[in-house]
């Protein structure tokens, strides 16, 4: 069974280590916050200028001056710090954020990522994605393995790139992949998904060594 968005988020949450500073992109990555175990202390960075994102506010705590990078109202945790955009991206560019989790349209076997522009569609802009992917110590992509039957795990990206040779790991609806020098190494399968199904859904070079375990939740 392919994973749903929440399950992808849940699997990615397992990658987060105690003490990590993490930037969560818009979409599935935002959901990751819901699955971080309570014994894992994590501080979430919001590139619009906050270290220490808290849960969504209750109705009476909504503050227009307190939003995340997805422009949703949020709260902040104890020990949070606010700063301006230049300092926020100095933090990101300087490699101080341990882990960046973001979505993508395509990833190549070299770790290139395309996530911001689809020719023929309105260009909305790259926002902070190019800064994040070019500087993060560790980048995990949350995405669908295929789109209308077409693989999005490719030899080369077909869409305009967001960054090159930067993605370290990918969690899709059917597999966990590591980007290595030799191609995508298959680490785990979604429960009930066969290796053959993953092979058939992957255009880029796939490395399969030994038994591939199912994801555990």
């Amino acid at each position, binding site marked *: 069974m392919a994973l749903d968005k929440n399950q992808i988020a849940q699997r990615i949450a397992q990658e987060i280590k105690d003490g990590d500073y993490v930037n969560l992109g818009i979409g599935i990555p935002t959901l990751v916050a819901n699955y971080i175990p309570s014994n894992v202390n994590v501080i979430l960075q*919001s*590139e*619009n*200028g*906050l270290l220490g994102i808290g*849960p*969504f*506010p*209750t*109705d009476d705590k*909504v*503050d*227009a*001056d*307190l*939003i*995340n990078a*997805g*422009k*949703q*109202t*949020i709260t*902040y945790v104890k020990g949070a710090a*606010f*700063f*301006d*955009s*230049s300092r*926020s*991206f*100095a933090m*990101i*560019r300087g490699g101080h954020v341990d882990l960046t989790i973001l979505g993508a349209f395509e990833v190549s076997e070299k770790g*290139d990522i395309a996530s911001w522009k689809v020719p023929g569609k*309105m*260009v*909305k*802009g*790259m*926002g*902070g*994605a*190019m*800064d994040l992917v*070019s*500087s993060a110590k560790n980048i995990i992509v949350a995405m669908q393995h295929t789109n209308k039957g077409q693989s999005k795990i490719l030899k080369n990206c077909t869409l*305009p*790139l*967001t*960054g*090159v*040779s930067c993605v370290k790991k990918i969690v899709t609806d059917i597999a966990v992949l590591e980007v290595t020098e030799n191609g995508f190494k298959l680490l785990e399968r979604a429960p009930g998904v066969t290796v053959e199904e993953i092979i058939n859904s992957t255009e880029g070079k796939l490395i399969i060594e030994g038994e591939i375990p199912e994801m555990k939740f």
Partner: protein
Amino acid sequence: MNKVVKNVYEAIDGIADNMTLMVGGFGLCGIPENSILALSKTKIKGLCCISNNAGVDDFGLGLLLKNKQIRKMISSYVGENAEFERQLLSGELEVELNPQGTLAERIRAGGAGIPAFFVPAGYGTEVAEGKEVREFDGKMHLMETALKADFAIVKAWKGDTLGNLIYKYTANNFNEVMATAGKITIAEVEELVPAGELDPNSIHTPGIYVQRIFKGENYEKRIEQITIKLS
């Protein structure tokens, strides 16, 4: 040293056709509502606006777009505005997209007297087109250049009569950095206090950067996506 102006019209006095403006805010958060509204009531046109986003159809910079007062936007993300899309596709509007961190750093550089600097963001992408590429420590970087503006317009939470500013939460965003890069910087604030009332250790924008300051009125503070926890 009198930086306090009577009202928003005195604040925006001197802004003219074809000038470059920086306008603070991220989405609709922390935008200088009073100044944008006042500009939308003028005939000023041909503006180049440096702003992370372009507002929504009927609020923020969307008001100036609707009036066709903007010739060019330098932004990182402009996705929430149908009129914007129409003008872009029709060729009425020019757009230069920058990675958000590069945009912020170019503005900082403009304020800090640094004409150019190197960043990794955008290497290997279309952002790199026409830019000098150089390797440092085994990693490829692009040379990016400083941005300045004829006027920078920012919104702060508290300000004093000497132009010192403090921003609230994530309403800081591009305001603090933009305040440094305007030939003339206009600050509209929610609270205007006498010099000496703000904690000197907690000033975000020292007054040297601010030429005009006034207390804004009727802040709507529209929220793009109200998300709440049901508890």
